């Protein structure tokens, strides 16, 4: 246990008060800033969510209790946006894990130019999302000018108007393309640390490639897959730019997720009260979705912290 030794050197068992504050000192600016910037807004959101506050009406806000929450629960678009959020997050996460694992397996073998291949493969994660989304919109998804339309016509299939007929599928394709490199990087790290001795032993015992993969590699990869899933879901659940650029949440709220719906309520309808209630509900939903995975993450990080 490395930390034990480290603690023995740098941390006496019972620190005097002054010493403890001296050690906390360097942490405080970052801690205080993060507390102010992330916790205070939630408290205010909670307060705003009980107000009737329409910016356009010109009236001051007034207390209305749970009125906004009732409106949220009765709002069909809200439920639609919850469904969209789940479909988009789960669909993209699964697609990224499957494709990312495949690519990671290829990339884990040594082949000429692997470094360059890997560098090219991670590029989609860096290009500016808003920029590439606009490009995909016209150059890939458009039925007459887009590449997908051309491929469909070449194959003798009717070109699909992705953004009007299958907007959610289009969004998932775009997001998957952006986030596969992310999944791949994590899974390559997992594959590189696969227990070689066990794999060899399994081979000695006559296990084929598939059996070695399912019985040795996959169990070893499990924490990496879980971690990748959690981090992907965390990022994807908050998707905003891609939706704004690709479909503007439409057609008929078909691609509006909770984040985008809050934006629409707050900055298009200027209904700050309802938007705040949406924010609180989305916070609760996010926690409910992420809590099981959070436990896992906390376990991983706590182990790491004690290293």
């Amino acid at each position, binding site marked *: 246990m490395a930390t034990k030794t480290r603690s023995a050197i740098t941390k006496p068992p019972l620190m005097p008060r002054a010493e403890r504050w001296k050690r906390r000192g360097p942490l405080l600016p970052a801690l205080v800033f993060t507390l102010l910037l992330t916790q205070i807004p939630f408290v205010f959101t909670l307060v705003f969510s009980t107000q009737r506050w329409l910016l356009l009406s010109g009236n001051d806000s007034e207390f209305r209790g749970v009125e906004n929450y009732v409106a949220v629960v009765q709002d069909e678009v809200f439920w639609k946006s919850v469904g969209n959020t789940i479909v988009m997050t789960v669909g993209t996460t699964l697609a990224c894990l499957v494709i990312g694992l495949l690519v990671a397996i290829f990339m884990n073998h040594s*082949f000429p130019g692997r470094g360059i291949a890997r560098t090219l493969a991670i590029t989609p994660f*860096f290009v500016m999302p808003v920029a590439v989304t606009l490009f995909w*919109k016209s150059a890939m998804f458009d039925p007459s000018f887009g590449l997908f339309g051309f491929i469909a016509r070449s194959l003798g299939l009717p070109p699909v108007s992705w953004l009007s007929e299958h907007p959610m599928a289009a969004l998932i394709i775009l997001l998957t393309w952006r986030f596969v490199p992310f999944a791949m990087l*994590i899974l390559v790290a997992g594959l590189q640390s696969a227990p070689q001795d066990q794999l060899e032993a399994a081979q000695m015992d006559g296990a084929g490639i598939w059996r070695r993969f399912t019985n040795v590699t996959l169990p070893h990869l499990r924490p990496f897959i879980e971690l990748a899933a959690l981090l992907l879901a965390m990022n994807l659940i908050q998707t905003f730019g891609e939706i704004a650029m690709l479909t503007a949440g439409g057609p008929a709220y078909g691609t509006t997720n909770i984040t985008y719906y809050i934006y629409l309520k707050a900055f298009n309808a200027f209904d700050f009260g309802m938007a705040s209630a949406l924010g609180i509900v989305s916070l609760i939903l996010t926690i409910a979705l992420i809590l099981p995975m959070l436990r896992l993450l906390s376990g991983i990080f706590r182990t790491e912290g004690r290293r």
Partner: protein
Amino acid sequence: MTTTASLNTRAVVTRNKTPQPRPRRTRGRATRITMGVLGWASSLILFFPVAYMVMKSFQTETVAASATPQFFFVPTFEHYVETFDQGIWPYALNSVIVTGVSTLIVIALALPAAWALSVRAIQNPQDSLFFFISTKMMPIAAGIIPIYVVATNLELLNTTQILIIMHLGMNLPLGIWMLRSFMQEIPLEIIEAAQVDGAGGWRIGWSVVLPLMRPGIASTALLCAVFSWNEYFFAANLTNSNSTLPLFLQKFLSFGELYTAQVAAVATIVSIPVVIAGWIAQKSLVRGLLFGAVK
């Protein structure tokens, strides 16, 4: 040993070593060729849309809008010239300021914090570490309205300052986690030796730890810069006319009709700095993207 523990220990072991030679006899020649082909194929498929975008940026709008993709054409630079005529400069300048300043402050705040969480550790550093990462899981949309109201009252709306503050909040947890994981790797013996020589906290930090941290600081800064440069949500909600590059791109939506080649040129220009930064930082990318949980 639990699975979670094995995740870390194994990752640490293999990452620190040079890649182990793989047992040759386990892989036949045919497998290696197949994997090489598949590896390159998947890489090229993932990279293709980026390459296609760069290609289209050199086409005229007529060529770019043809129903059949044109791979042979006379390149034109007109869209690049036009981009600079369309007033990209103020946005680019804001992007440089917001990215540069917020990244600098992230490092300035995260370095001492990482120090307090690793070298001269406070009691229970895990609690603080967990708090920082938990802020990354909260939906940003749930806090945007109070931030908007406060920004309005402080007259910070539509300024680079508010974006700097928000990007700081966005990247600080990442910076702390990443820098701490780099600091954890500094051999204890070095710090110990400095202590034996009678060096105080400041002196150890400045002359021992900081020089060793340079590569770690560089890749942390690059990754924070990438996220800051690409950030759109705060830019869209807290600024309009005086904003960063993603909002310059947004203007192309209001044209009604999209100009593919023009968009491709702008997209290429704004992506070049981050793609280069990302390529440089890729070695420690996993550590950053996983908040330093895997090295």
